[in-house]
Each structure stands twice: as C-alpha cells, then as structure tokens.
C-alpha cells in the first residue's frame, strides 16, 4: 500500500534530523575556523585580558583600602591581581587545543562579554543584547525583500517560459546582466533619485524622526522606509533569477511528460501548474538558496547605505569602532542565519520532492 502519512512524517523527520546534525557540525567548524583566524595574532587574548583588567579595576575602586594608596602602588597592585586572574583562568595555557575550544564554546553561545564601545539602544553593553536587538530588524527587511523577489521571479519566469523568443523574453536576456551589481549598488542610485532629487521617499533609517505614536502610523512609517531597501535588494538579483528560472522552465517543459500532457489536451495553464511548475521547484529552490547566501552578504553594505539599524549596520559600526567582540558576534550570528536558511530550504525541498518524501531507492555506490 502507499506509505501512510505517519511513515512520511517519520521519513521526513529522519531526513531533517540528519540534515540538522550535519549543519550544526558545519557551524561548529565554521565558527572554530573564525576563532582560529581571529586569534592568529593573539588579538582575542588581548581583548580578553583588557576586559579582565577593566573588571578588576572596577572592583578595586569599590574597595576603600586602595583609595589612599599612592597611584603607582595602586597600578602595581592591579597588575598583580590581573596576573593571578589570568593564571586562574588558565590564560597562559597554550591556545591549542583547550583554550581554542573554550573560545569556540563562548562564541557559539554568543557570550562574548562586553562590547568595547558600542552599546544597544537599551543601553546594555553585552554583545549578545546588542545583536539580539538588531536581529528582528534585519530579518524583517531580509524576509520581505526575498519573498518579493522569489514570487516576482517565479511568476515572471513562468510567464516568459511560454513566450520563448518574444520581445519580453529578449528584454529579460538583455537585462539579466544588470544583476551583476549587488543590491547596495542600486541602493545608491535609488537614494540619489528618490531621496535627493525627487525627495518623495526617506533616505534611510527605520522610522520617521519624531517616532509616530500609534502602532498603525509607526508600522506605516516603517513600511515607507522599507520601500527603497526592498526595491534595491530585489533589483540586485531579479533579472538574473528570472533568466535562470525561465531557462529551467524551458528545459523542463521539453521533458517527455510535458509533451504527453500537451498531447492529452491539457490547456497551457493546466500544464504550467502541474507539469512544469511542480517538477521544477526543487532545482529552483536550490538556485534560490545560492541567491539567499549572497543576499546575506549584501545585507551588510545595504543596511549601511540605507542606515537600516540591523545586524549589517551594527557590523559596519563595529568595524569603524574597532570593536572586535561585536565583529565576532556578528560573524557567529551570520553563521547561524546561513545555516537556518540552508535548513529551511532543505526542508521545503524534502516536502516538494516526492522522491525524498516517499523515499526513493537507496543510492548504489
């Protein structure tokens, strides 16, 4: 009998579990690599030590005994205290392997201690709070723009696949190279036209200067601010995606089962939905995954250009302010976000492709 729903869920569960484990292993290796690169010149240790000295210094002020000592004596005492503290934390042990794993664990759990200069809007100096505060803002922009891109490209590609050789088709082929430029690049021009010259859309930022009071006006203002960034992101990849997906459709619509569907008398709309769109989804998802990966990278500059207070701009501020813990924190968070993107798309892939859902035969080595 055909596999019951329970079996399908069990198979999907097993499939996604294995994917999740493999992805998590990948994140560990990626972050470990980052930690190693970061500490090649011993920077990580410097930061850690300066943070410890700072804490010791804070504690020392509280203690009245120090207040009346001569300044050199105080400095010398603090140094001593710092040295014992370093020893206690085993800072003098060799970096490999033990301490590197310790850094790895701290990085993975995002406890990177205090930022050197930056602080979150809520005033906290903890790296994790700074990042967590900015995460939803980035996700909002990233999510909307890529959903718009996906559906716009999908239906444009489907529409074009039936007009092979038509004017619109040739136009797309001519425009496809426009996606060579990333989103932030179009952002600059959009700001130039709509912000500077026409002055009808805000330059950037999340919301109007005097924060609107009601929730509705606040949301509207945010939407208004999102228009340009979303258009920039979409323009950065739209035509290349339409071109490549329209090619997928063309190749798949010359498959034998589409010929048979046409022979069976299905209307072209019927064929598109069941015979072209569904079988083509898996390769489209794979190609969209690659787009998302490059999108994440483009996010940094785009947010900077649009002053969009997300992870990207905090990363830029961190580089300007030379704030290493925050830089490390953002890299780790991006690692998680990339892994999440890969996982989500893999999961959708498993649902869409029956071979995985129903379990194709084992692969012969």
């Amino acid at each position: 009998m055909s596999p019951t729903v329970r079996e399908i869920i069990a198979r999907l569960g097993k499939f996604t579990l294995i994917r999740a484990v493999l992805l998590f292993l990948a994140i560990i290796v990626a972050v470990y690599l980052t930690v190693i690169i970061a500490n090649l010149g011993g920077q990580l240790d410097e930061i850690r030590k300066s943070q410890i000295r700072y804490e010791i210094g804070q504690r020392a002020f509280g203690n009245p005994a120090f207040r009346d000592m001569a300044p050199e004596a105080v400095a010398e005492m603090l140094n001593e205290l710092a040295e014992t503290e370093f020893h206690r934390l085993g800072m003098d042990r060799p970096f490999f392997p033990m301490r590197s794993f310790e850094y790895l664990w701290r990085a993975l759990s995002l406890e990177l201690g205090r930022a050197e200069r930056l602080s979150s809007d809520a005033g906290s100096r903890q790296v994790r709070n700074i990042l967590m505060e900015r995460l939803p803002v980035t996700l909002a922009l990233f999510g909307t723009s890529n959903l718009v891109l996906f559906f716009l490209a999908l239906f444009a590609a489907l529409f074009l696949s039936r007009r092979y050789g038509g004017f619109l088709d040739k136009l797309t082929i001519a425009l496809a190279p426009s996606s060579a430029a990333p989103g932030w690049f179009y952002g600059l021009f959009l700001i130039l036209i709509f912000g500077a010259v026409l002055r009808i859309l805000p330059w950037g930022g999340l919301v109007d200067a005097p924060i609107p009071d009601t929730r509705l006006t606040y949301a509207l203002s945010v939407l208004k601010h999102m228009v340009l960034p979303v258009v920039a992101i979409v323009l950065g990849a739209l035509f290349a995606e339409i071109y490549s997906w329209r090619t997928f459709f063309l190749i798949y619509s010359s498959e034998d089962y589409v010929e048979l569907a046409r022979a069976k008398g299905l209307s072209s709309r019927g064929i598109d939905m069941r015979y072209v769109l569904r079988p083509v989804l898996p390769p489209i998802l794979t190609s969209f995954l690659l787009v998302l990966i490059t999108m994440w990278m483009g996010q940094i500059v785009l947010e900077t250009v649009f002053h969009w207070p997300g992870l990207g701009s905090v990363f830029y501020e961190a580089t300007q302010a030379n704030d290493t813990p925050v830089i490390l924190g953002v890299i780790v968070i991006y690692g998680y976000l990339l892994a999440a993107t890969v996982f989500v798309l893999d999961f959708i892939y498993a649902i869409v492709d029956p071979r995985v859902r129903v379990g194709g035969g084992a692969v012969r080595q």
Partner: protein
Amino acid sequence: MCTEMARSSVGYMSEAREMENNILLSVKGLQTWFELKRWGFLHAGFVRGVDGISFELGKGEAVTVVGESGSGKTTLLRTILGLARPTAGKITFNGRRIEGQHASDLAWLRSQVGFVQQDPYGALAPFMTVDRILREPLIVHKMNEEEQEQRITEAMDEVRLIPVKDFLSKYPHMLSGGQQQRLVIARAIILHPSMIVADEPVSMLDASVRVEILELMRKIQQAHNLGVVYVTHDLSSVRYFSERVFIMYAAKMVEKTTVREVVQSPLHPYTQALLKAIPDPEPENAGRFRDIPIGEPPSLINPPEGCRFHPRCPHVIKGLCDADMPPEFEPAPDHFVECWLYQ
C-alpha cells in the same frame, strides 16, 4: 566455424595444467555484489550482480550470453574486465588470477581484453579525434611513436575505415553509427588482446548495418584466434555470434548448451518462455496469443528464495523450487541446466 575445443565436461583442471591445454578464461562459483548505501553511509543491502556462475572459454572460442536488462550480464562483463571486484569464487585469465586483485595490479589484464560497448557514440570521447581515440590506449601502455602509427593504421585497415587519413582528424559526431562501431572495434583490438568482451555490440544499430558489423567481428575473431564473450538480449541473432550459448537470469546461468539445442530442445522453463516470447516476422503473429509467464524480472537486491524463476515458472514444484537453489544438472551431453525438473 570456431575451433571446437576438446575438454572434459565435468571436472575443472588446476590452473597450472590449464595453461598448456589452452583454457583462456575459467570462472568457478563467481560472485560479484555491490554494497548499497542510503544517504551516503547507512548500509542498505547488496545488489547481487553475479551470484554463483561457472563456465570456461577456450582460446579462440566464442560464446554468447543471453540475458535481459537486470539479469546481471553487465556485472559479469565488468568482472571479467577487472572493473568490478568479485566478492567470492575464482576467475582466472590465461592461468592468472583476477579475483582478489586490486584494480591497479590488473594492468596486465588491460591489454589482454578488448571491450566493445553497446552505444557506439557514447563509447567515443566526443572531444577527441579518431586519431586521438586510437592513440590513447597505446600511450597508456607506453608504446613508442612509430609503433603507435603502425598499429593505428593496421587497426583501421582491419575494420575497413579506409582511406585511413580521411578519418584520422574527424570527430565521433561526424561518423555514421556503423563507422562509430567500427572505430570502437578498432580500439578494442589495437592492443592485440587475446579476448574480446562485447556488450550488445549491434543492438543500437539499424538492421541493415547490424549484420555487416557482426561479420566484421567474426572475421577479426578468426584472423587473430580471439576468445569472444558476446552479450545480447536478442536470442534470434545468437546463431551468428557463436556455437555455445549461456542463458542468464537473475545473476545466475540457468542453461548452457549449443545454439541448435537451445532452439530445438530448450530445457529451462525460462529459456522455453524466451523462445515463445520472441516473434519471427510472420503475418500469423497478429492473431495468436503467446503463452508466456507474467510478472517482472526479480530485483537483484533481495532475489526470491530457492530457484529465482519459481515465482513466474509454470512447472514450479512447491516445497522444492521455492526453497532451495537448484544445482547444475547435465541431462544431455554438454547441455547443463539449473532446474529441479532434471534432478
């Protein structure tokens, strides 16, 4: 006809004595299984390509293996060529062992066995010229320059791709189906092998060209006294390949006999079914129904218990055929069959 080679039918001689009484290829209880992996590392069973096969081939003797797709015939060929490692049994070529050797130390076998494949266009690298295609095996076997030139022209003459210089600079897509297959044959004999393995050499050619290529292969076989193992699924063309024929089903050789015997008095139920199924071009066919077993060829991953044909066999003996694997019987001289009906 090929030289009828005297040999005793039952016992198998030790390898050493095989050498001088011209046994070219001896296969005893051969097994070649592939491990199946799911998601790259989970063991998911074995594909039993060849599962206990024995036969012998004399020098200069041709034999035909008839088997359908999924019967394991390709695995048998790959094992003889040393491309698939046998998991059990013995296989020796010119007295030297093949099983158990790693692919790298089978180099001596490479020049000894020529390989003619089914798809003529696919068997030729599309980006190489004819000259390059023929030169590659010679380069791999480290032959000097003039030896290469001499062998290339000699091989092309033999397969009548003449005038030679017209073809040398051509690419495979510029040749017709027949010419492509001739080039494949030329490449197979260029290393002066002592045996040719041909996997359905003519099945993808048009009827009119098919016979031409068959006759060419027969001429080459006799000229160089080559042992040949033909594989085909087309029983009606066996008579033009060789004297002896082996019928293969689900990774086993169910019947071994001469062409005349297989047509006049097939013993194994599967062979009988094959004969009933294959039409000759006669108008009466349109009216008649063929009485052949239904069902599908068995999977080689978990084949049926006992005799592998029992689920489709019209004469199945309950309790015997579906329980134990039938050994090889010889109900008539030089006519072997693996079926409990002849115990």
